[in-house]
């Protein structure tokens, strides 16, 4: 049980708790803020796992852009500012069952298959910018280009969808 494990464990708990709060919060804005906490904890987890670039990209994109976008969306759709009783739909029991089942199955799978798998972080190359960049532009150029096309398409699509008829 190294220090890394402990840190990871704590961050994991924080992440999970924040996630649960995201899906059970009564305020939409609170849910968004808890999402920020969750993403932050995840970024920390990535850091522990030596994925530096991914961690900062997580912070940048997810927390910085995605959650902000969601907050904008909530604002534009006049999300109720106060607590809303009916934020959870009547599907809750079924959803709980489904969620538990999914978690159970996946967890069992993971535990059964990868018991004893141990990440040795001391002998891995740290995934910093140089490392990931080299790998990205040496081996994954094509997906990179396609990703940019995807982003363009999403941009155009979003504008078209929200365009008001003149």
């Amino acid at each position, binding site marked *: 049980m190294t220090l890394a494990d402990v840190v990871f464990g704590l961050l994991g708990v924080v992440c999970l708790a924040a996630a649960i709060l995201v899906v059970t919060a009564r305020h939409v804005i609170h849910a968004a803020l808890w999402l920020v906490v969750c993403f932050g904890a995840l970024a920390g987890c990535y850091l522990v796992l030596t994925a530096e670039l991914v961690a900062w990209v997580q912070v940048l994109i997810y927390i910085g852009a995605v959650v902000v976008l969601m907050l904008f969306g909530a604002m534009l759709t006049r999300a109720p500012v106060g607590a809303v009783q009916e934020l959870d*739909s009547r*599907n809750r029991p*079924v*959803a709980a*069952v*489904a969620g538990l*089942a*999914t978690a159970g*199955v996946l967890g069992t799978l993971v535990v059964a298959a990868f018991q004893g798998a141990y990440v040795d972080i001391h002998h891995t190359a740290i995934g910093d910018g140089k490392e990931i960049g080299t790998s990205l532009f040496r081996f994954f150029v094509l997906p990179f280009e396609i990703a940019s096309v995807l982003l363009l398409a999403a941009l155009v699509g979003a504008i078209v969808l929200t365009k008001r008829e003149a």
Partner: protein
Amino acid sequence: MTHLAWLLPALPALAAVVGLFVGTRVAGGPAVPAILGTGGAFVMSLLVLGAAEGSPAKVHESAVAWTPIGGQTLHVGTRVDGLVAVIAVMVCAVALLVQVYSTAYMAGDPRYSVYAAEVSLFTAAMLLVVVASNLFELLIGWELMGLCSYLLIGHYWQTEGARAAAVKAFVTTRFGDAAFLVGIIVLGVHAGSFEISRVLAAPGPRGGVFTAGVILLLGGVVGKSAQFPLHVWLPDAMAGPTPISALIHAATMVAAGIFVVARLYPLFLAAPVALTVLGIIACITMLGAALAALAEDDLKRVLAWSTVSQLAYMAAGLAVRGWTAGVYHLLTHAAFKALLFLAAGSVLRTVGTNLMSQMGGLRRSMPVTFVTAVVGAAALAGLPPFAGAFSKDGILDAAHERGGALGTAVYVVGLLTVLVTAAYVTRFVVRTFLGDYRGAADESRPRLHESPLVMTAPLVALATAAVVLGLPVLPHRWGVARWLDAPVGTTALHVAAGGVVLSTALVVVSAVSVYALWRRDPAADPLAMLARRPFANAFGVDWFYDRALVRPLHAFANAILRLDDGGLDAAVEGSGTTATGIGGALRRLQNGNIQTYASGLVIAVIALVVGLSWVMA
């Protein structure tokens, strides 16, 4: 000539077909093909009579082999002997007179061509029965007659009474016809062939099966000739036009049953039980029908009950081996009953109602009808020298000679019936023609006048026949027995003077008493004290049939209907409803909420994963 006897049924049948299709376009109306066809048959029948002339050696048969279903060969043809020739003449004569009479009676009827065609078809069917050489041929004609009777009784199908009467006649005779068919089959199988000559001459033991077959034949006779217990259709059949009543229900169809017994008489002689049964039925019918006629107010129904009673006379005559007397009575009855019905038609057409309580005093306004009707009435009552007298006395004489229980019973019941017959005949004449007119006195009163010549001429012709036919009891050379060839073992026609005096005395006593009763109150029914139950509703036979047969059958049919509606239809429709219901239930899943869909998806995937991993583990 006898080899052309097949023309006898063929000509009227042809006239029927032609008349049906071109009747309305022929100049002179639809009656022309009918009268031509029937007239031709009449001429033919006279020629055949001349050739056959009542000698057993002159029996002529001709047949054509016919294999309708490729197995059994039927020989279809004609068999002409004295009886056949005489009856054929009678049928053609009455049919011709009725067709002529109908041109005036049914004038203005929009369906006259259909009527004339049906009457021609009926004539053809009756002649087929008469000249048939094969039992199945006879059956075909028999059934065709039943069909034509149904169609003609129901001629005024717009009225409920006519429809009901037609169905009743058909169904009641059907009962008898079923037994008739079985009887024919039994006898045919027993004799090895269905040809009449073979069946009559078949040797071999005449045991229980044979007797059963003969008794079954009686079933058809009882049905067609309206004897107890299948007599109930005849009075109601008066809902048809009066010329039909004259032709079918007086002279021909109802006489067909008697004719069949006469034709197949050797079979009956070999199965004496059948004759006894016939005799008992005849006695019951004879007196019962006569008593029912006493209480009827409807003119035609009186005549209908009278027909039933007279047919019983014929049957009784045959039952006591008085073959010649029975057949002779058939001939005379045809004459005077047809006459009476046509006279009644003449009266009805003028007065406009059937009820005798609305008639009276018509002898002044309808003299020809009156005179001919009185002649017919006298013949019916049995007053010599009119026709019915000697034929009736011949039957009574044969019964007396037969002796035994059956003979005595027929004799006594016959005499009683003479008494009652004279009573109702007198009542009929007195209420219709004598006294003063009792109908409406205001402007709805019909114009009372004599009928046209076309109608009175047949009346006169039949009246003449009613007188002339009384004569053949005279010396052998002119006698009726010469024309018929009686089977061996039957009593010859013999009329004793004592018997004639006795029955005449009974007739006179009865007639005079009724007349005297009438004189006391000319406007009322002289026998009003009898016009109550059980005479008035014919001893409740109809009521019994209604309760015992008609209502249970209706209830059963309704139950089946309910079973079909509630059970089978409900099951079939239920399957549709169930399918719709299941569909509706399944539709609940498609509620439009994507979270429902997604939940289902997730749970299904999990279940698949778990299931598969468990199976493959």
